[in-house]
């Protein structure tokens, strides 16, 4: 019987073949994207599960390793730097290394090794003492782009450093990403957002023109075909398309695969070999998609009674009722309440929010038919004319089928709206200003109070002799302008205002002759030799906030006699640079002073600090845009498939109407109405739901800025854009109507 099924499926003429191809193509798009999502998910899981050896912090007085981890910068990228000395053999080894480097050797990640080859030594290479012994393997890296170096030392070289700890165990637990919750949420959101329209697409495709097949099933029953035989024949039909589609999807995935490697999902690229849906993913897809198609087909067959005289619904479905809106409302409540109640508590929320999101999305699907019916009633009440009558009839007769066509798109709009609302809110809350008069000024701090930054030790500031050498070295770099800031010897001598930006004891002393060289710092009061200025704003990563504090030195800044000459400790150093090479040379000099700098306070320019934030969010925005685009594409395909299906399904009545004198224009308008109407109604609801979903998240992201979410132009853009695309898709499907109802092909005997 399976052979008969295959035979019938393949021999049923060009239309059936075209249908099979459309089904296969749609399923292929769905499966291809599904596999891509799976592959990225696998890479993501693999990457976040990697041990964070950089996080090693457990001390052991008898451990075999002296461990000093710090971070450095090059060209806006962070370098993970580990200085290590082996006290006893057979100690633990950093993952990805064959052995710990011996003194005078270092291992670099491949990306850093490439960078070292391409960069003059005084900009980068001189920071790392010794010779390169090899590269770090993937086990020790999260991304092929990671800049990592592990440098071997003699124990005596490290023992004195305040950053050094003695340890017995390298951390094997993964990094507790502070941003991981956010990413996890984003990932889940994206996956759900893409998956639902994907499933709708696959479902619509396999179900395409089921009614046309039902005609055949009645004929089969008439000549004595049994139910089970019909089930087999129908399943073969569905499975054939789905199987072809699944295989095509694997092909599509193979084509997409090279692109996936470039997606910086976590802000960096994944290792290529981790991006795979795994063998089980492939096998599962090839098995599950056709199986699901068969099951969907059998379920839809169960709902009809195929008698030899034709196919009838088992029961005429009652019109959709109001309760269908309730799950949606429940989902919205579930979504909104926890975020409103505890907006600051980000920890438990993502999983919960994903659940709520799933509920909201399924809720939308459940509520859809009711909305469709309501819009049909409005249509019937407000309009006159043949096409609107036809459309209203169709909508009222089968609101479920009409809604099914637009459901994927509605979800896409909802997700699009949510994202369009979220991203600007997130960006606004992050103040990603990238300009500042201090953009090209490097800042580095030599003072760490232990009450602020608990660590292996307090760093009091750079002593005068050391500071003098450092300043002399920086002075030899052409294009570098150094402004030293000194710690006041005694606080309270020159009083700072009790409030405002200059409040607190973040004051540092600066010589006016130095400050003069960086005009953005401001001008000293006339005749002053040195002033006390507030430096607390210097360590913000928010350039807008920084700019608000500028200039640091004003005409009313307190004049002080402490001009750094009296043995004051160097607290901070500002270095204006005239270009990237100068910047890296300064950093190379500074890397000799790592012991005196907080190991996590990398020497960066203000511009770089601002860019890190901005880049992160721009990347998120880019991913979100791609995701929204793909979702829209998938939903569009789903819509096209559903509409073509519904047209083919009604080929006979439409042809009849044309034969009896109904203009094809009337039919076009009727089809357009019956699809656009639920689309508009659903979109309006989806956009509303999107805003409702986005609002609490945006609030959580930007507490205290409740107003930022509404209104944003990108809302209107997303929604209108989505609608226009859909109408275009529908319009593109209409010629099918003209073709299949061509009267010269009509046959009614």
């Amino acid at each position, binding site marked *: *019987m399976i052979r008969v099924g295959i035979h019938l499926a393949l021999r049923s003429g060009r239309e059936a073949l075209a249908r099979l191809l459309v089904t296969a193509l749609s399923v292929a798009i769905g499966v291809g994207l599904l596999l891509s999502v799976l592959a990225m998910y696998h890479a993501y899981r693999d990457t976040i599960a990697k041990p964070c050896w950089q996080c090693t912090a457990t001390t052991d007085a008898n451990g075999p390793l002296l461990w000093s981890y710090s971070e450095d910068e090059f060209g806006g990228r962070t370098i993970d730097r580990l200085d290590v000395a082996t006290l006893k053999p057979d100690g633990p080894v950093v993952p990805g290394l064959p052995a710990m480097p011996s003194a005078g050797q270092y291992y670099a990640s491949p990306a850093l090794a490439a960078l070292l080859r391409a960069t003059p030594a005084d900009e980068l290479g001189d920071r790392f003492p010794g010779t390169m012994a090899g590269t770090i393997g993937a086990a020790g890296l999260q991304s092929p782009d990671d800049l990592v170096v592990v440098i071997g030392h003699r124990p005596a070289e490290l023992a004195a450093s305040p950053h050094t700890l003695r340890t017995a165990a390298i951390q094997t637990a993964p990094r507790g990403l502070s941003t991981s919750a956010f990413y996890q949420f984003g990932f889940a959101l994206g996956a759900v957002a893409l998956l639902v329209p994907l499933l709708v697409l696959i479902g619509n495709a396999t179900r395409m023109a089921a009614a046309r097949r039902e005609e055949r099933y009645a004929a089969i029953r008439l*000549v004595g075909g049994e139910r089970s035989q019909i089930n087999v024949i129908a399943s073969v039909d569905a499975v054939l398309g789905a199987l072809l589609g699944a295989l095509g999807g694997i092909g599509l995935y193979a084509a997409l695969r090279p692109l996936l490697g470039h997606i910086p999902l976590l802000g960096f690229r994944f290792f290529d070999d981790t991006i795979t849906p795994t063998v089980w993913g492939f096998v599962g897809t090839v098995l599950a998609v056709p199986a699901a198609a068969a099951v969907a087909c059998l379920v839809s067959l169960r709902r009809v009674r195929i008698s030899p005289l034709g196919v009838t619904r088992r029961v005429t479905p009652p019109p959709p009722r109001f309760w269908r809106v309730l799950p949606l409302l429940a989902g919205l409540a579930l979504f909104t309440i926890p975020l409103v109640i505890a907006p600051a508590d980000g920890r438990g929320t993502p999983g919960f929010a994903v659940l709520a999101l799933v509920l909201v999305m399924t809720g939308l699907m459940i509520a859809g038919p009711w909305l469709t019916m309501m819009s049909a009633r409005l249509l019937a009440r407000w309009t006159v004319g043949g096409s609107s009558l036809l459309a209203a009839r169709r909508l009222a007769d089968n609101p479920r089928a009409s809604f099914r066509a637009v459901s994927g798109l509605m979800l896409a709009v909802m997700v699009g709206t949510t994202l369009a609302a979220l991203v600007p809110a997130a960006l606004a809350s992050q103040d990603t200003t990238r300009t500042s008069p201090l953009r090209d000024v490097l800042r580095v701090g030599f003072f760490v109070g232990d009450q602020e930054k608990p660590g292996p030790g307090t760093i009091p500031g750079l002593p005068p002799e050391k500071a003098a050498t450092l300043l002399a070295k920086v002075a030899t770099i052409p294009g570098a302008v150094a402004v030293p800031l000194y710690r006041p010897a005694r606080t309270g001598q020159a009083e700072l205002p009790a409030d405002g930006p200059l409040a607190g004891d973040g004051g540092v002393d600066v010589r006016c002759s130095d400050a003069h060289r960086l005009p953005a710092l401001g001008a000293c009061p006339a005749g002053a030799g040195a002033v006390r200025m507030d430096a607390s704003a210097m360590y913000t990563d928010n350039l807008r906030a920084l700019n608000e504090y500028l200039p640091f030195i004003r005409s009313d800044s307190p004049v002080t006699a402490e001009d750094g000459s009296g043995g004051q400790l160097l607290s901070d150093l500002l270095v204006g640079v005239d270009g990237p090479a100068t910047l890296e040379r300064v950093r190379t000099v500074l890397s000799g002073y790592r012991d005196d700098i907080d190991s996590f306070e990398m020497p960066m320019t203000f511009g770089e600090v601002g860019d890190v934030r901005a880049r992160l969010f721009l990347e998120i925005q880019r991913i979100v845009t791609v995701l929204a685009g793909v979702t829209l594409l998938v939903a569009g395909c789903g819509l096209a498939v559903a509409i073509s299906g519904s047209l083919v399904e009604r080929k006979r009545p439409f042809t009849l109407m044309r034969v009896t004198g109904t203009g094809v224009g009337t039919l076009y308008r009727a089809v357009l109405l019956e699809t656009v109407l639920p689309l508009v109604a659903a979109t309006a609801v989806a956009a509303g739901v999107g805003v409702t979903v986005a609002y609490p998240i945006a609030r959580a992201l930007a507490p205290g800025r409740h107003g930022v979410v509404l209104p944003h132009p990108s809302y209107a853009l997303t929604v209108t854009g989505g609608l226009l695309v859909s109408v275009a898709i529908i319009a593109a499907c209409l010629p099918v109507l003209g073709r299949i109802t061509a009267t010269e092909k009509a046959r009614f005997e």
Partner: protein
Amino acid sequence: MSILYANDLTKSFGATVALQGASLSLEPGEILAVMGPSGSGKSTLLYCLAGIFTPDDGTVTFGGRRMDSLSDRERTRLRRTAFGFVFQFGQLVPELTAVDNVALPLLLSGKRRTAAYEQARSWFPRLGLTGLEGRRTGELSGGQAQRVAVARALVTGPEVLFADEPTGALDSLTGEMVMDLMVDTVRAEHTSVLLVTHDARVAAHADRQITVRDGQVIDAGARVR
């Protein structure tokens, strides 16, 4: 000894009573015409006799067995092996070719593909359809499609052919030709026919005529030939 026998059938659709106490019998090899006005219950009677509908009351006996108590499965098997059908239109699968349609019942019975198609093809010359085997049935003329339907109904060698207005959608000349071919063939095959029609000229092909009115057989019908 009649091959098919109905006694006192009643059948209602909701409030509509389609049959109320209809009885008839069909002899082996006999062509029986069922006449009557529109809505009188002719088609319903035919569907009950063919096991497509189960009557609310009354009995249908085929080959000595009670049909009305058979399971759907067994009635399906009967349709496949012992009955053939020709309706006014629409009983062919439009997107399949003519020969596919004729071979379909054989394929469903589990016959080998080559054998099924060979057997199906052998019917085309007999019904004047030579050369049309590969046509899709949507692309045939009405008379051709009805002849394909006859071929499909007879290909399994049924004992009874149920024909409901087989020429109803055809002009009189074409209808006449289809009837001639059909009658010649069933006589050659010695198949009994239950022929529902309201056209006296079509009924004239039958051995015997009965009339249905308001769900009852009011005229058991004399043998015409």
